[in-house]
């Protein structure tokens, strides 16, 4: 018999699923008492080299009462992309074989150096695109320009005023995408015209490669003068609106990526985040809490509307924001969150962080296919005993009311289908269930509950595919089999799933409320599963399967996902964005960063994320997912400064210095987005990245360290894990709780 650990790992490897409980309580009441809901993390496109591709999704006739499957007897008009059902004669649009579309939306209000770097990245990216992919370019500053790519000689673009909110219809009319009614009446075939119209802005890469390269090369900074004391006028809102409108009008329900590159916040028009007066700073958390962020609600609403439109059409939106100050990610995050797009945040386009991250968007799998999929629809089917409460992840509800939809919503609920416009192998959704059976009619023992995940998506090779994952778990009576249930607890998955719930709440609730909720959940869990004597904190024990959980919660409470102190709203949004879409491993790293220690005393070893791990003769490597920090202890730093590593006789020191670099490099090369790489040392200003993460077991308040190996004191008033645990125990055992 394998351990649950092994079982869990197997399941994850095979199905991409991790459940919080691997034995399910047989009634709703019991399930509630377990505190952590029955839920799972599901990675729909988990890479499975051996997974046979399921063939095409059968194409059904669109008439509700027909639904016949596309078959060889049907008439197909390839030009008009229409097929006629040979049973009911319904004319259906032909679905498959749509090209991938990449629409670059580029901010030109950049510093020359940044713009140059961005142009180069974009030009480079052309070579990474599949040759038959369609590519388009929109640039914006004070105005928004949609570039026509098919023209020779003269570069044409359609210009929109950056201050005016236009409807999709207006945009399509202005771009000449709507078919003039007249031509229709004349009965001329529309198709060629139609094609030509769309082709103007979205062209196959192989055809416009040169043109576009030149066009990008000639791209100028926004020519409108920026007076002293002003921000450049940046029409991000309209640019996105145009991009969404363009795709909506030309390729609805076809996989497409809008890639937005911004170097600053939207400063005019709809979606404006901050005015152009430099003396008015962009909103901070403080402003938001004081309800002092003028544009916040309006802008958020605007971008949400756009995101929803885009999601409806199956287009995802990436945001690549590179600036030292905030760029309005708080308002715009929904664009990516709802459409499955990426958000990448950096200081400048001229950094390897951006350049490599961007390059990694186009990475390929072992089949040579892009690690991206589009227009995914995830459907969850459950056996009768279960219902779906909701999902948390880069998705939107499809409002599909099936019998397995629970009335209690957790996350995005009320549906059994979600649309995930952009998917990659690591995209992971948290899915929450509810046990249906009442306490007096529990699920019979020995039965199994089943969940089926049906994921339809457009593969990057333009095929439409469907992946079905079915899992089953045993039911257990929580009264009699609580031990079993306890041991089936996947504390890692549970931590992440609870963290997602917390983050989801944090989006709409005040920070302290979320923390209180989280604490309460933790205390209840400890009460439920802890072994203790009432009112005796020292007697408190947790079983192995829960032992790490409180620690996760401790770090989660301190994490930027729930703490906004010291983070800008944009940073919070950025962190949360990634948190709710990464798989379990990455999510855990985000919650509790990994710390490795390098020394002459032995091989590299993981050490406690604790201030006590910070020692003078160690090199530490911390991975927080967003940052990679290499910290040289005081002694090491002095040696390094003295240059010992240059001396042949200290080759070992050189190797010691090199070891964490190599490990870091390995992480850097695989992670998306590329983490910020920080090389610092004792006393260095950047050491703060490390110091803010470690458990402050030693602070200026409890500095009892006079011995050698005491680590570094942290200047903070935050409670340490020890204190946290003490409180937890006290509360858990308290009879009054």
């Amino acid at each position, binding site marked *: 018999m394998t351990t649950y650990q092994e079982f869990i790992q197997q399941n994850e490897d095979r199905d991409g699923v991790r459940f919080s409980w691997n034995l399910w309580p047989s009634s709703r009441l019991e399930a509630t008492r377990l505190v952590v809901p029955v839920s799972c993390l599901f990675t729909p496109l988990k890479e499975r080299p051996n997974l046979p591709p399921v063939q095409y999704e059968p194409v059904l006739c669109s008439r509700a009462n027909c639904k016949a499957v596309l078959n060889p007897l049907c008439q197909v008009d390839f030009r008009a992309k229409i097929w006629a059902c040979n049973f009911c004669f319904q004319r259906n649009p032909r679905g498959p074989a749509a090209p991938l579309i990449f629409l670059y939306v580029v901010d030109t209000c950049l510093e020359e150096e940044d713009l140059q770097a961005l142009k180069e990245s974009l030009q480079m990216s052309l070579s990474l695109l599949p040759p038959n992919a369609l590519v388009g370019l929109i640039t914006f500053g004070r*105005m928004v*320009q949609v570039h*026509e790519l098919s023209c020779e*000689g*003269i*570069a*044409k*673009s*359609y*210009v*929109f*005023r950056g201050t*005016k909110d*236009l409807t999709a219809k*207006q945009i399509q*009319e*202005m*771009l*000449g995408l709507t078919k003039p009614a007249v031509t229709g009446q004349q009965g001329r075939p529309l198709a060629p015209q139609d094609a030509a119209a769309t082709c103007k802005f979205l062209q196959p890469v192989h055809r416009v490669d040169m043109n576009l390269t030149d066009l990008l090369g*000639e791209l*100028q900074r926004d*020519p*409108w*003068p920026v007076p002293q004391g002003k921000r450049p006028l940046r029409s991000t809102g309209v640019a996105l609106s145009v991009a969404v409108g363009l795709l909506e009008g030309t390729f609805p329900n076809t996989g497409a990526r809008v890639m937005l590159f911004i170097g600053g916040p939207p400063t005019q028009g709809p979606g404006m985040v901050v005015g152009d007066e430099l003396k008015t700073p962009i909103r901070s958390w403080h402003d938001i809490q004081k309800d002092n962020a003028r544009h916040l609600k309006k802008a958020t609403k605007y971008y949400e509307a756009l995101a929803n439109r885009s999601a409806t059409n199956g287009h995802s939106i990436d945001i690549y924001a590179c600036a030292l100050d905030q760029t309005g990610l708080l308002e715009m995050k929904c664009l990516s969150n709802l459409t499955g797009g990426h958000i990448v945040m950096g200081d400048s386009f001229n950094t390897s962080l951006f350049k490599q991250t961007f390059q990694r968007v186009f990475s390929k799998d072992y089949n040579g296919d892009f690690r991206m999929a589009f227009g995914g629809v995830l459907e969850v089917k459950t056996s009768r005993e279960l219902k779906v409460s909701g999902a948390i992840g880069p998705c939107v509800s499809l409002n599909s009311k099936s019998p397995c939809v629970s009335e209690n919503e957790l996350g995005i609920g009320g549906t059994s289908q979600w649309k995930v416009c952009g998917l990659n192998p690591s995209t992971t959704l948290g899915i929450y269930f509810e046990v249906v059976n009442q306490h007096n009619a529990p699920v019979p023992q020995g039965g199994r509950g089943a969940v089926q995940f049906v994921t339809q998506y457009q593969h990057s090779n333009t095929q439409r595919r469907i992946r079905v994952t079915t899992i089953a778990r045993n039911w257990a009576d929580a009264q009699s089999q609580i031990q079993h249930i306890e041991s089936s607890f996947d504390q890692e998955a549970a931590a992440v799933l609870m963290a997602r719930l917390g983050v989801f709440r944090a989006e709409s609730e005040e920070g302290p409320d979320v923390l209180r909720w989280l604490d309460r959940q933790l205390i209840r869990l400890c009460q439920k599963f802890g072994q203790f004597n009432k009112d005796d904190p020292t007697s408190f024990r947790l079983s192995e399967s829960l032992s790490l959980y409180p620690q996760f919660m401790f770090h989660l409470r301190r994490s930027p996902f729930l703490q906004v102190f010291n983070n800008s709203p944009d940073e919070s949004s950025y962190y949360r964005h990634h948190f709710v879409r990464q798989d379990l491993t990455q999510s855990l790293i985000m919650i509790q960063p990994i710390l490795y220690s390098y020394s002459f005393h032995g091989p590299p070893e993981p050490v406690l994320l604790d201030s006590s791990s910070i020692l003078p003769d160690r090199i530490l490597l911390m991975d927080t997912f967003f940052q990679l920090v290499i910290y040289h202890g005081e002694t090491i730093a002095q040696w390094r400064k003295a240059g010992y590593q240059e001396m042949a006789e200290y080759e070992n020191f050189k190797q010691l210095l090199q070891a964490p670099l190599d490990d870091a490099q390995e992480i850097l090369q695989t992670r998306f987005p590329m983490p910020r790489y920080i090389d610092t040392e004792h006393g260095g200003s950047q050491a703060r990245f490390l110091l803010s993460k470690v458990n402050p077991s030693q602070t200026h308040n409890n500095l009892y360290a006079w011995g050698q190996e005491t680590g570094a004191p942290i200047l903070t008033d935050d409670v340490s894990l020890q204190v946290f645990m003490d409180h937890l125990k006290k509360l858990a055992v308290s009879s009054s709780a």
Partner: protein
Amino acid sequence: MNVNQHTPMASPYGQPQPSFGQPGYAPLDGSYPAPYAPYNGPASAYQPGAPPQGPVRGPPTSGPPPVSAPQQYNQYSQSQGSMQNGPPPPTQAPPRPAVSQPYNQGAMNLSGPHPSYPQHYGPPSTMQQVTNQMTGMQITSGPPTAAGPGYAPPHSSQPPVSTGYSAAPQASYTQAPPPVSSAPTQPPPPSGPAAPQQYYSGPPPPSQQPFNSSLPPTSQQQQQFTSSVPPHPPPQQTLPPSSYSGPVPTQSQPPVPPVSQAQQSFPTPQPPFSSAPPPVSQSSFATGPPPSAPGSFPPQGPPPSSQPGSFPPPGPPLTSAPSCQYPGPMPPQQQPPPSQPSPYHSGHHPPRPQMPPTSMAQSNHLPPGPQGPAGPPGPLQQPPSQPGMQTGYPPQQNGAFGQVRGPQPGYSGPYPGQPNYGAPAPAPPAQKRLDPDAIPSPIQVIEDDKAKTTEPFTTGVRGQAPPLVTTNFQVQDQGNASPRFIRCTAYNMPCTADMAKQSQVPLAAVIKPLATLPPDEAPPLVVDHGESGPIRCNRCKAYMCPYMQFIEGGRRFQCGFCSCVTEVPPHYFQHLDHTGKRVDCYDRPELSLGSYEFLATVDYCKNNKLPPPPAFIFLIDVSYNAVKSGMVNIVCQELKTLLDCLPRENPEVESAVRVGFVTYNKVLHFYNVKSSLAQPQMMVVSDVSDMFVPLLDGFLVNVNESRQVIESLLDQIPEMFADTRETETVFGPVIQAGLEALKAADCAGKLFVFHTSLPIAEAPGKLKNREDKKLIGTDKEKSLFQPQVGFYSSLAKECVAQGCCVDLFLFPNQYVDVATLAVVPVSTGGSVYKYTYFQAQSDQERFLNDLRRDVQKLVGFDAVMRVRTSTGIRATDFFGSFYMSNTTDVELAGLDCDKAITVEFKHDDKLSEETGALMQCAVLYTSCSGQRRLRVHNMAVNCCSQLADLYRNCETDTIINYFSKYAFRGVLSNPTKAVRETLVNQCAQILACYRKNCASPSSAGQLILPECMKLLPVYLNCVLKSDVLLPGADVSLDDRAYLRQLISCMDVAESHVFFYPRLLPVMKLESGSLPVAVRDSEERLSKGGVYLLETGLHLFLWVGASVQQELLLNIFGTPSFSQIDSNVTSLPVLDNPISQALRELIYSFRAQRSRYMKLMVVKQEDRAELIFRHFLVEDKSASGGASYVDFLCHMHKEIRQLLS
């Protein structure tokens, strides 16, 4: 010509002519009948001019007038000579005398026809009138002296009148010395022409009839008219005198003959006038007719007698006749060729007077030389005519005309029109037409003025009227602005508002601030008063000028406008000499010249910031029609070279003007042509509902820096849109785009919009087709001239605020609603060019030349014009292409060298004769190099307490300029009919006032015109029958709106030739000198001739059907009339003097005008001739416009009504 006309008159043609007249008049008659009676009055008017002044002003008036008169006469004679041919000379002499007599008689010419009348009224009245006239104007008419003699005889033979007249006239003539002299020379022509002019009498005829009917006196009056005109007639007619009037009454009048005389008489009156134009003509007439007249007279004599009897009958018929008569007159005009007699005859002819007339005619004809023969026939005819007369008094008129023409067989031939006339002619046998030659001739006046102007015109003398715009002269600035910059309607302003009101003479100035000066005149000097800016009066802010009086040793100066005393700033101080003038007076332009410029300081700039150089933006329609017509290609090709010719102040330096390009159909395409680009970039703006400029840097560029990119762009534009299927266009957003671009660049500038169609695409300023011909003539007609939507007015306002001037080039294939599209150009000081049915091949030349000129011409931007005046008058109204946000500042987004602004002044207090009236026009503008400047024009005119002085120093061309602008603006708010009536009324009041207050007493039947205004009726008639006020069926609404706005910014020279086109006989062309022009009447065209007609907008080469092969060969390179290609727009380059001279002539015509005139070759009797005929403004127009003769009659009637 006149002669010719006369001759024809004499000949049978006359009859046909009548028909002409009739039709036209008919309508008029209805209303006019009564007027006729009044006409007599007018007749007197003529005289008055002379007479009244005669005594009092005698010296002055006579002085000047005579001069002119003589000249005019001379001219006439000359012209006639040339035109008409020799014949006249001999005859002329006689005519003139006649003229003198005629006056009274002239009037009588009419009477002629109306012999009967004469009897009734005529005789006595005529006599008196005659005398009066004689004494007065007629005397002047004297010039005809020569004629006098001629006539004299007849006269003498006839009653005393003749003698009297003769005497008087002679005297006057003598005074007129020039006239006299001229007379001799002129004789021939004068007789002819003069007579016609006097035609006034002509009109009278018709009126007369009514008169007769209505008033017995009328008849007299009529006679007077005639009489006044027909000095000649007088002699004969004494009887006729009445007859003159007779023309109307005519019938009755023996005067008929007088009629002819009448014409003459006109001349006579003129003489007095100063030879008021009419007189002059009269004299000439007289001359012309006289000779013949004599002969005729005698006959007349009899007729009259007989007539008397007839009269009664005529009386009744008269009424009817009137109408007929009108027609009659009309014919005369047509007959004009026969002009001399015709008019007279017209009126009179029919009557026995015809005889005389005929004779007259003959005389005229005679002059014509060729006609010589005709002459004889004339006489012959006379006899017959006489009979006719009796019988047909009523018919006489017509007959007369007809006869007249008849005489000129040759001519008649040529006139295609004649045949037509012929038909009618018969009906109105009684014609009382005025002889077109007897009424004031524009040509005569123009030629007289040319002859008179020998020395440079110096502006130092206050109140001195400059030479006419048709005269070439040099100007020396001696303290007042050159007439090239400012022309006034009156150089003697009435001192009081009452006087002004009484006279009804508009007090206005036509100002062309940036007028181009001929190379031999220095442009205004630039004055820099340093950092503190130009020195100005503290109170009224007038700029330093010669009217500032320095006092207290030069420490202060007193403003000539408001009398306020201002300290002289230390840096400007200068001592005074013993006369009180600053010793540096002549070193400083602002103290010694009428026009100069100040450098403006930042205080005179927007936002207190010196302006950047202006920009030119080219906005090109690339819709289907634009591409297909070739316009897009042409513009793009041309711009490549044209961009090197952007305006610059210093030819050495490259132009500071930046350029930008936009193309558009339903959407707009902006182009980035930044020099650093390898290829231009096109930026499409589809959001036309909310226009903006998509780019800043790279849109407006320096031509030299971006040359390659620009050329590449201009090469590609036609290609890019070659296959366009877009037919819809926008317009409002196009201008908005240009405006926004200028705003973004923070500079002033000019938009060149090349547009083809009605903007029906969904956008601001969208228009619908509202061309509704049914509204024409209704009270709602005005709405057609009003903009369809308010959008463009507010847009224009924005443009003006930014200094954005819009020039619009239209290439319509159908209705485009010029009335609306032109709102912005007109309000921003821009121009509208229209090329209907544009075709690359035939219209390219005209368009390109217009474009080149428009791009290159001197232009100022973001201008504000302010006219300051001395206390007592005030600028109250402004006409032109500009915008006004208050009542004083004329704001011009752009002001180019072709734009004129007409300013009207009103009294708000009394003026003093001592100080005169001062005006200072200051224009603040940004030059093409971006320099801010102030151009100042000063003008001082005299003030008078006597009306006569006013009438003696006014300028008809300028008055017409004012009237036309006033009327063309009036159609926006009033029915065109009301506008026409207003004009006629005001004109009648002006003339009536003159008659009443300035002319010596005379019979009411006489039409007496002030010398300076003798062309007022003919010119006014041209305004009245312009396409705007009286459109023909084929005139589109767009054309009318186009012309309407065109007139609004014309200067005097342009409006003059526009309303009275220049018609040159090409066959008399000799290198080095221009042939004397011909009057704009079909009758003046010889079938064997080739004529060049220009209006400032059109250029026609009319080829007679029987032109000599040699001439055709020389001009067209083909000997056959039928092989002439009437589609050519340029003449073949042939190596012979005629061809060379003609092409040079055409070249020089084009060079004179602000718009390029496309040459149209019109073959006689070709279909295109209809268009050409439209410009023969002395004839009755197809749209129902009166002929000159008819209108004169009508005017006379109006005047008489006012006087009675």
